[in-house]
């Protein structure tokens, strides 16, 4: 963890420092329960760069009109300035009383994106040109009615993933002021483990059976594929491998109705996370081939089953499995 901080950008570190030292200022960045209602205590406003540029121009216009003692020109300048600066109220109203009613997320696999659906309650006023920004994701949207927007946040590792501090901002109506608020909802989505790419075939008849030679039956050679660490040597297609300059293994069609036991302990020779990745890939494979499967983990045991719920239970168990003991 300490090695990581050196690479964190200075800005982020400053923010973290500010948060530690000035909790009063940043208290709204803490996790808070839903629904979150935005009000003046937590809506911040600052002029944008364009707003500052316009202010400079207004100053020039003002000086010109005053210098030439040209009252109509001054009136026009005042009108322009008043309309421009009053837009701060419209900007504020864009966020004021906006409610983040609920969050929902579809589980996804680590390494990909998790889609968070943020449900807004607009409180009687359409909200225009809002922007949501979270870790590595940004979306722009309008809210004419109550509704949800989808925010895709990358999931770097398995387990519970919070959307984190979400920056909700708007430059509506004229782009002169930026209003923003930080929301950090008490919500987390589950990121399943990363799936191993090109996993070996499903083990048969549980972990013990994996090393037994079993011929005949309904097994038929289905395909050849590249060797993966942990493939049983007996499955290597030596003749074919010799022709191709790489190791190929024979893949057998597992007939329907067979059961498999996916055992963590049986995957010797692999790192902890790699084992979890492979088990997750096998769960998905078994599910797609309609092979009933059981999952054995050091702390958990899930009995044989099939279907979306069983799959979810298995993947969840894998996702929440504790990290490597070391």
């Amino acid at each position, binding site marked *: 963890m300490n090695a990581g901080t050196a690479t964190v950008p200075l800005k982020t570190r400053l923010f973290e420092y500010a948060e530690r030292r000035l909790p009063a200022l940043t208290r709204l960045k803490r996790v808070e329960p839903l629904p979150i209602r935005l009000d003046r205590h937590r809506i911040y406003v600052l002029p944008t760069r364009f707003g500052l540029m316009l202010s400079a121009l207004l100053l020039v216009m003002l000086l010109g009109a005053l210098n030439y003692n040209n009252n109509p020109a001054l009136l026009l300048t005042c009108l322009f300035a008043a309309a421009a600066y*009053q837009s701060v109220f419209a900007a504020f109203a864009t966020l004021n009383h906006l409610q983040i009613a609920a969050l929902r997320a579809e589980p996804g696999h680590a390494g990909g994106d998790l889609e968070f659906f943020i449900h807004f309650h607009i409180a009687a006023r359409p909200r225009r040109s809002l922007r949501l920004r979270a870790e590595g994701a940004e979306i722009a949207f309008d809210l004419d009615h109550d509704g949800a927007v989808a925010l895709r946040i990358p999931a770097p590792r398995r387990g519970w993933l919070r959307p984190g501090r979400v920056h909700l901002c708007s430059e509506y109506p004229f782009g002169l002021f930026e209003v923003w608020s930080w929301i950090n909802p008490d919500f987390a989505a589950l990121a399943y483990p990363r799936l191993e790419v090109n996993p070996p075939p499903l083990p048969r008849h549980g972990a013990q059976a994996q090393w037994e030679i079993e011929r005949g039956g309904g097994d038929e050679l289905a395909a050849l594929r590249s060797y993966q660490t942990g493939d049983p040597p007996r499955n290597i297609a030596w003749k074919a491998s010799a022709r191709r300059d790489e190791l190929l293994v024979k893949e057998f069609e597992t007939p329907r109705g067979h059961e498999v036991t996916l055992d963590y302990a049986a995957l010797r020779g692999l790192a902890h996370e790699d084992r979890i990745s492979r088990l997750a890939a096998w769960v998905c494979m078994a599910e797609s081939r309609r092979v009933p499967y059981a999952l054995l983990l050091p702390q958990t045991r899930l009995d044989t089953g099939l279907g979306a719920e069983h799959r979810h239970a298995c993947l969840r168990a894998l996702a929440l499995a504790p990290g490597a003991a070391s």
Partner: protein
Amino acid sequence: MKSPLPLTQPQFRLTAAAVFVAVLPHLLRLPWLISLPVLVLFALRWLQRRRGRARMPAWIKLPLVLFFPILIIFHYGNLFGREPGSALACAMLALKLMETENRRDARTAICFSAFVLMSALLFDNGLWITVLLCTALAVLFAALRALESPRTTLLPDLRSGALALAGALPLAVCVFVFFPRLGSPLWGAPNDTTARTGLGDRMAPGTMQELLIDDSPAFRVVFDNAPPPRDKLYWRGPVLWQFDGSAWTRPEWLASAPGDGEVRVRGARVGYQVTLEPSERRWLLALDVPLFAPEGAVRGADMSLVSRTRVDDPTRYRMVSAPDYVLEPVLDPQHRRLALQLPPGYDPQTRALAQRWRDEFHGNANLVIRAALDMIRDQFTYTLNAPLLGRDSIDDFLFDTKRGFCEHFSSAFTFLMRAAGIPARVVTGYQGGYFNKLGNYWVVRQSDAHAWSEVWLEGRGWVRVDPTAAVSPQRVQIGSGAAAGASAPWYQADWLMELRNRVDLVNRFWNDAIVQFNALRQQSLLTPFGVAKADYPQLMLAMIAAGSLLLGLLAWWVMRAPKATGDALDAIYAKLRRKLARAGVTHDPATGPLTLGQHASARLAAPQAVQRLLEDYVGLRYACALPAPERIQTFTRAVAALRLSAATQTARQSS
């Protein structure tokens, strides 16, 4: 995180509209040499945008950036100053539109448009142009809004732009009124000449024609007491002495030599206040004959008033005049020489005629004048469409064309008098005016411009003779419009003039309250609050106070809680709950309708009606997804008809 997204078509259209609206008032004013290429730029951009999304290549843009400054230098001689500066700004703004492809460019262009829009007011600060330009700001704001939230139709953006402007009006007025004005400019005030019509110090046949069809107000007058009769309203402007055969001019040294010019006042004096429109000349106008010069002006020996500075802003001054007077009873020899000067070798026929009269009447000036006026009355016609005159302009007019207007008549008459040995001069100015009953003031328009003659008579001094009145008395009695008769252009039709005269009230207010508002008048703003002479900090304080009040109101309006959301049924149910609460059926927000019913039967004497209503509500709310509107209406009426207070009384008494 500003993404350089290309502009959508509606966004671009609104941006282009904003730029065009800003440039338009300048285009109407700029010489075609500059306005035409700018228009071509717009057309090019439009075509290019239609054909595809490709960017404008640099080999087109760069030469254009150089081309316009060169063009402007070619036309004006330099790049700085009001005229060339605004031309350059227009050109650069149009060029900016050429390369506007993303939001950042568009914002810059719109921002700059506001500046260009304002600079148009440096040239013309009339009421209508100001209102138009302020309205044009709505397009700018609409474009800014479109850049924020792109959509396909323009109307919502325009509407919200206009709303933003309307909402900003109170604050704008507050700042406008209280923002401290500069007592003196920080840098040079504008000094460029624009071709504004007005009285000149030169009169040649035809120079006044433009003036006589110009209906813009020249000045306004408020009399202290009853004004003199209309045909006595001769407003004295420049007096012209020198004639070179084609034009009458005023010798420069006369203007710079203030003469005290003896005036004997015979009748009553008339006091009044004149508000002069900016003329970009130095003449001040006063009723014949002014008794003194206003502050900052000089009264010449010929009684014309010349301001020391050019009249670039509306100017107000008080005057006292004597309608009945004897001017210069003893003629200064130098004046006599000037008033008899004639260009040699011009107009022999006129000279001969004058000589004949002189001999005929033995030098009796009165008889010569009468003869001349008789001739003009009998043989001449008043018309604004005067034929062109040749080298001997007076001869041509008197013996050939015999058609003309005040300029021709006064010129010919003065010439005749001088040729007959009577000192005479041409006086230009305005005659008449329109009395605005609503505002109780007189407005004198450019079209009231007039020229007459003055002859010097022994014992009577300078006497005004208006030969135009001889040929067209209604010119003096009714006004120039009537005198022009059938030849008047349509926009001088009587009813239209009437309308315009009424509208003039608004213009006067504009001039008085807005255009002429200055540091001096600002100081007296706070008099009602006990501050006799407000200084800058006090004005600033007033501005901040009034502004804060307005902004506070706005802030309150923005922060007020949104209306209770929910549908009509919710509202009625809330009403029912309130009624029950008043009747003593206690409940809190978590109490459901069925529990509420139990509470009601416990507390009320006759809970059946309430029970039924609550059952209805449960049916409406939970038994169907979307209840029919009629059922909701029935429920509404039933809730409204529910009376509980009496029932409560009895319930309490019985318990």
